[in-house]
């Protein structure tokens, strides 16, 4: 289970003079739940966009699912799923329409799509919502559906950008259970979040601050190293010297 699915070497991303990602180096293994933590503006979203082929790095080597993300980003798209907080599903389409649409976009055969639709709706207990417009669904249900759609085509890796913002505690946990299930099925999950307690659900986490990775390990090891009880306290220990720079 130690096959590397993501490999990042000396990744740099600049926007003009501003260095959003400063020399990132890390690897992610198959079936891992890898947490990418950091404050807003630390560079998480920039990095995840590069990894999912949405933007190109300024320099460095980025390999995702065996594909060179720098030079052939378009080849990544079949191997990955992507879900971001702000938008994933079309608000004025129904649940079923969204699933079918994305199935088509991923190039799945129509027969397979129809089958998956049924399976998905049953698993999420959504069958009654089949023809509901997304805009009418509560946030928690939307997030769960968006995640299911992101892994509809069984990608090798799924990228989740702040997927649980503002969601109620019960739904948040159900969401993470879905993530667990997905990971144990062999799909690697790369998730960013600023909920520090969610860091604990990950196999390994990295903490970003001002464009750099300042910590990378299992949550347990980090807590031991900094001699604290929660990942949040680890974060505060690391970030504290930076307060005055703000």
């Amino acid at each position: 289970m130690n096959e590397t699915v993501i490999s990042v070497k000396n990744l740099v991303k600049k926007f003009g003079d501003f260095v959003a990602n400063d020399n990132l180096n890390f690897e992610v293994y198959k079936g891992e739940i890898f947490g990418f933590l950091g404050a807003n503006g630390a560079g998480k979203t920039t990095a995840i966009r590069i990894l999912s082929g949405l933007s190109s790095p300024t320099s460095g080597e980025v390999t995702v699912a065996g594909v060179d993300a720098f030079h052939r980003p378009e080849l990544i798209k079949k191997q990955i799923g992507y879900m971001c907080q702000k938008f994933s599903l079309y608000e004025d389409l129904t649940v079923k329409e969204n699933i079918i649409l994305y199935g088509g976009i991923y190039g799945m055969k129509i027969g397979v799509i129809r089958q998956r639709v049924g399976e998905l709706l049953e698993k999420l207990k959504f069958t009654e919502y089949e023809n509901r417009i997304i805009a009418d669904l509560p946030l928690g249900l939307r997030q769960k559906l968006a995640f299911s759609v992101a892994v509809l085509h069984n990608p090798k890796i799924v990228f989740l950008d702040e997927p649980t913002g503002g969601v109620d505690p019960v739904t948040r946990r159900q969401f993470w259970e879905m993530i667990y299930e997905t990971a144990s099925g062999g799909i690697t999950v790369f998730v960013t979040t600023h909920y520090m307690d969610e860091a604990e659900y990950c196999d390994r986490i990295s903490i970003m601050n001002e464009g750099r990775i300042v910590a990378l390990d299992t949550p347990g090891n980090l807590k031991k190293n900094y001699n604290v009880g929660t990942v949040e306290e680890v974060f505060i220990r690391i970030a504290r010297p930076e307060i005055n720079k703000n």
Partner: protein
Amino acid sequence: MKRFLGFVNKEFLHIFRDFRTLIILFGIPVAQILIFGFAVSTEIKNANIAFLDFSNDEITRRIEDKIISSGFFNRTSDILNYNQIDGLFRKGKVREVIVFEKDFSRKLLSEGKATLDIITDGSEPNTATLVTNYTLAITTAFTQDLAKGSLTGAPQIVPQVRMYYNPNLQSHFMFVPGVITLILILICALMTSVTIAREKEFGTMEVLLVSPLKPVQIILGKVTPYFLLSFINVILILILSWLVFDLPVRGSLVLLLLESMLYILMSLSLGILISTVSKTMQQAIFISLIGLMVPTILLSGFIYPIENMPKIYDFVSAIIPPRYFIIIIKNIMIKGTGFLYVWKQTAVLMVMTALFIGVSIRKFKIRLQ
């Protein structure tokens, strides 16, 4: 291919579920055809003319009949001397005055030549050209008819064309006042509607509402800077037109500026009104531009005279403020008239302004719902 079709299908769904897109797709073309079909005309109908007939003989009357029976013109009462011409044009009562000199028939038949003065209101150059050309066509045809029955050779009716107010028939006499009218209302309405909608969209409006600021203060606070800046804008445009186009201000400059201030105020308050019904900046821009631009250009008499349009457009045009300002600005700038000739239009604009402000204040929500 499947992906493509799936995507196309989604786009159809979006379109049919969004009412506004449907309006744009179907409503606007239909409206445009109707408007362009009827409002835009490159011919004239019902142009008012008056005759100043010093001869009053058989031939002049035949010419007059020919002109009227063509159907393009509308005869208003004859005048008796040259002094009355100015008044007719100032009041905008006629587009053209046709003057027959004394002893017209005799001069035409014995001397073979008689002059016909065609004096046209040049403050609307397009229409003036058309009207003049139509008149000339009729008189030329008449001359040719005469020539058929004559033994002494072709008699000539020599037309002398004079463009009142605009001797050189410069088109910017039409353009510049029209453009000023259009620009002022668009920019003023657009600016104020957007600035209020912006506060709503960005959420800062909530905080303003919870503050001691009264709605009147918020509205006036928004309007004042634009008022001052637009006024400076007007002065700039006037200076430019004078320098570049030689456009005169034949009437009172002070009156023109005062009327401009009124018009600006009206446009700003229209913008406020638009903002009270807009939830987002996009909506405000949409209503201000689409809702104001087309009617102003086509239905205010800016380019196409209102008298050429079916009666119903006349009613529609009556609620379009630019219609009144165009009359005011042309009268003052090109015809050089004073307040007496524009008081009606001024009054209408005042009423409209008061109405817009009043309704805006009432509609301005002191709460979020």
